[in-house]
C-alpha cells in the first residue's frame, strides 16, 4: 500500500486527505463497486434526513390520544370495540391518513417524526462514538508499535483485558452504573470499542516501523513525534478510514439495542426506543415494530456495503 501511495501521491508525509490525486484515485476504485455507491447514497440521504428532517416534521414527542395506532398510508386495520352496556361488538375499519403517512404508535405519536429523530440519533451516536473509538485505537496502536518494550506490553495486555469483556454486556453494566443519557452512551461505546482498531493499527504500524523511509527520517534527526505524526499516522490513515466505516454499523446496532432494552436516553427518540414500544403492540400495530427495524437494517446494510467497497478500494491487491 505504501509503494502505491508513494507512486501516486508524490510527497509522503502529507495528510492523506490533502493529496487530491490519491483521493481521486481511490474514489475511482470505489465507484467500480456499485453496492458501495448505493450504500453511500443511502447514508447521504440519512444524513440529510437527520440534519434537516426534524425541521420539516412535527415534534416526535407530541402525543394525540384521538389517533392511537393509526396504520401507515395505504394500509387499513380493523378495530373491534366491545360495548359493555349493549353487549355488542362494533367493528370499524381504520384507514391510514396522509397527515401521518407512516402511521402513529400506541400513544398517537407520528411515526415519521419519530423515525426522523431516530435517524439523527443513530448517525450522531454512530459517528461520534466511532470517532472516539478509532481515535483512541489509532493513538494507542501507533504508540504501542512505535515505543515497543514495556509500554507495548502493558498496552497490549490492557487491550487483551478489554477484549475479554463481551462488548454488549460491558455496555449494559456501564450504562446501568452511570445512568442512561446520550452523552454517556456515546462515551461508553467510544471508550470500550477501540480494542480491535488498536490491535490492527498496531500490527500495521509495526511493519511500517522497520521500513527504510522511517529509518531514513530518524537518521535525518526527526523527533519521535515527527515520525509518528508525519510518517506513521499518514501511512495507516487508509486503514483507519476502513476500520471506522466498518465499525459504525456495530455502534449503531449497539445503541439501538441499549435503547431497546430501556437503557437509552429517556429524553430522545431513537429507533431502539420505538422498537421497544412496538414490541408491546405487535398484535395491534405491526408497523411500530416494522418501520424502525427496516430503517436500522438499511442503515447498517449501507454502512457494511460502503465499508466493504472502501476496503477493496484501499487494498492494492484486490481487483475492483
Amino acid at each position: 500500500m505504501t509503494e502505491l501511495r508513494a507512486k501516486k501521491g508524490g510527497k509522503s508525509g502529507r495528510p492523506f486527505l490533502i493529496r487530491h490525486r490519491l483521493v481521486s484515485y481511490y474514489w475511482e476504485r470505489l465507484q467500480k463497486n456499485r453496492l458501495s455507491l448505493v450504500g453511500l447514497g443511502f447514508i447521504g440521504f440519512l444524513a440529510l434526513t437527520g440534519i434537516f428532517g426534524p425541521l420539516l416534521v412535527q415534534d416526535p414527542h407530541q402525543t394525540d390520544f384521538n389517533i392511537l395506532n393509526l396504520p401507515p398510508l395505504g394500509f387499513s386495520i380493523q378495530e373491534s370495540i366491545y360495548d359493555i352496556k349493549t353487549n355488542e361488538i362494533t367493528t370499524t375499519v381504520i384507514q391510514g391518513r396522509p397527515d401521518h403517512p407512516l402511521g402513529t404508535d400506541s400513544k398517537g405519536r407520528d411515526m415519521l417524526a419519530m423515525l426522523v429523530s431516530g435517524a439523527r440519533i443513530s448517525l450522531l451516536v454512530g459517528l461520534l462514538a466511532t470517532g472516539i473509538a478509532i481515535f483512541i485505537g489509532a493513538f494507542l496502536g501507533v504508540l504501542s508499535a512505535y515505543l515497543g518494550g514495556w509500554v507495548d506490553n502493558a498496552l497490549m495486555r490492557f487491550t487483551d483485558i478489554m477484549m475479554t469483556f463481551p462488548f454488549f454486556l460491558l455496555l449494559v453494566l456501564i450504562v446501568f452504573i452511570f445512568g442512561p443519557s446520550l452523552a454517556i452512551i456515546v462515551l461508553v461505546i467510544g471508550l470500550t470499542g477501540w480494542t480491535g482498531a488498536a490491535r490492527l493499527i498496531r500490527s500495521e504500524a509495526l511493519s511500517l516501523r522497520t521500513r527504510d523511509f522511517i529509518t531514513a527520517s530518524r537518521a535525518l534527526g526527526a523527533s519521535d513525534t515527527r515520525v509518528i505524526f508525519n510518517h506513521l499516522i499518514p501511512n495507516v490513515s487508509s486503514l483507519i478510514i476502513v476500520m471506522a466505516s466498518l465499525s459504525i454499523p456495530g455502534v449503531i446496532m449497539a445503541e439501538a439495542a441499549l435503547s431497546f432494552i430501556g437503557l437509552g436516553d429517556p429524553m430522545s427518540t431513537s429507533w431502539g426506543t420505538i422498537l421497544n414500544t412496538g414490541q408491546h403492540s405487535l398484535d395491534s400495530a405491526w408497523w411500530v415494530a416494522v418501520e424502525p427495524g427496516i430503517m436500522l437494517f438499511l442503515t447498517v446494510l449501507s454502512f457494511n456495503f460502503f465499508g466493504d467497497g472502501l476496503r477493496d478500494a484501499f487494498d492494492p491487491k484486490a481487483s475492483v
Partner: protein
Amino acid sequence: MRSYIIKRLFYSVIIAWGILTITFVLLRVGPTSPVDRYILNIAAKGQDVDSVRQAIEARYGLDKPIIEQYLLYMGNLLQGKWGWSFSASQPVMELIGSHWIYSFQLILLATIFAIIIGVGLGILSAVKQNTKIDYAASIFSFIGISIPGFWLGLMLILVFAVYLGVFKTYYDTSYPIWSLENLRQLIMPVLALGTGELAGYVRYTRSAMLDNLRKEFVTTARAKGLSERTVIGKHVLRNAVLPLVTIIMFDLGSIVFGGAYLTEIVFGIPGLGQVSFNAIFANDYAVVVAVTLIGTFLVLFINLVTDLIYTYLDPRIRYD
C-alpha cells in the same frame, strides 16, 4: 509445549485480575453506589434510611478503607460469594444456578445451527465461485450481518406467532428442558440469534476455502488424480476450518452473548440475559454485575481452551 501452557495459564490469571479490577473501579467511580440503589428500595418500604445505610455499609465492608474493600471484593468473588439479590430474595449464585441452563441451550443450539449452515454455505459458495449460488450466498450473508437479531426475532414473532399462529408468542417454561416441545419453541429464538452468527461464518469459510484452493498442495492433490471430493473434503477443508475455530470462539464474546441477551428478552426466555434485564429495573446491582462477570469469565475460559486445543490441532504452534 509445557512452558507455553504455563505461560498461557499465568496470562489468563493476569487477565482475570484485570477484569475484576476494572469492574471494581467502575463500581466505585459510578455516580451512585450500590448502597444508594439498595437504600432506594428500602426507603420505598418506609424504613429508617440512615440506620439501614450503616448496617449495609458495615455488612459489605463499605466503611473500610478502599484498599481493604478491594481485597474484600476480590476475596469474596474468588470464594464464590457473589452477593445477595434482593429482588429475587436469594443469593446471586443460586439465582444464576437456576437460570443459566436457558441461556446455555439457546447459545448451544444457535451456534450448532450457525456452524452447520454457515460452514456449509461457505464451502458451497467457494466451490461454485462466481456462480449464481455464490452471489446468492454472499447477498444472504450481507443481509444476515446487517439485520439486527432482536428485530429479526420480533419479525419472526409477528409473522409466525401473531399472524400465522404456528408458534406461541412467549417461551413456555412448563415444558421440561429435554423435550421436543421445548426444542420446537426454541426454533424462532435460534433462528433470530443464529442468522447473524452464520452470516459471518459463510464469509470466513468462503474466503478461507478460496485461499487454500490456490495453494500448491491442492494442485499436487489434483495431479495425483484424487477425486474432487477428496481434494475439497480432506485437503482444503481441513486447512480452512482451523482458523474458523478461533473466529467462532471470538464471536461468542463479541456477538453471541450480547445477541443471546437480547434474544432472551424478545422471546421471554428466562436465561441470564432476562435475569440481568429484570435486575436493571429492580436496581439489583449484584445481579447485573454478576451476569457481566460470568459472561466475561466464560470468554476468558473459552479463549484459554481454544488456545490449548489449537496447540494440539496445529503442529506448527506445538513445535514453535
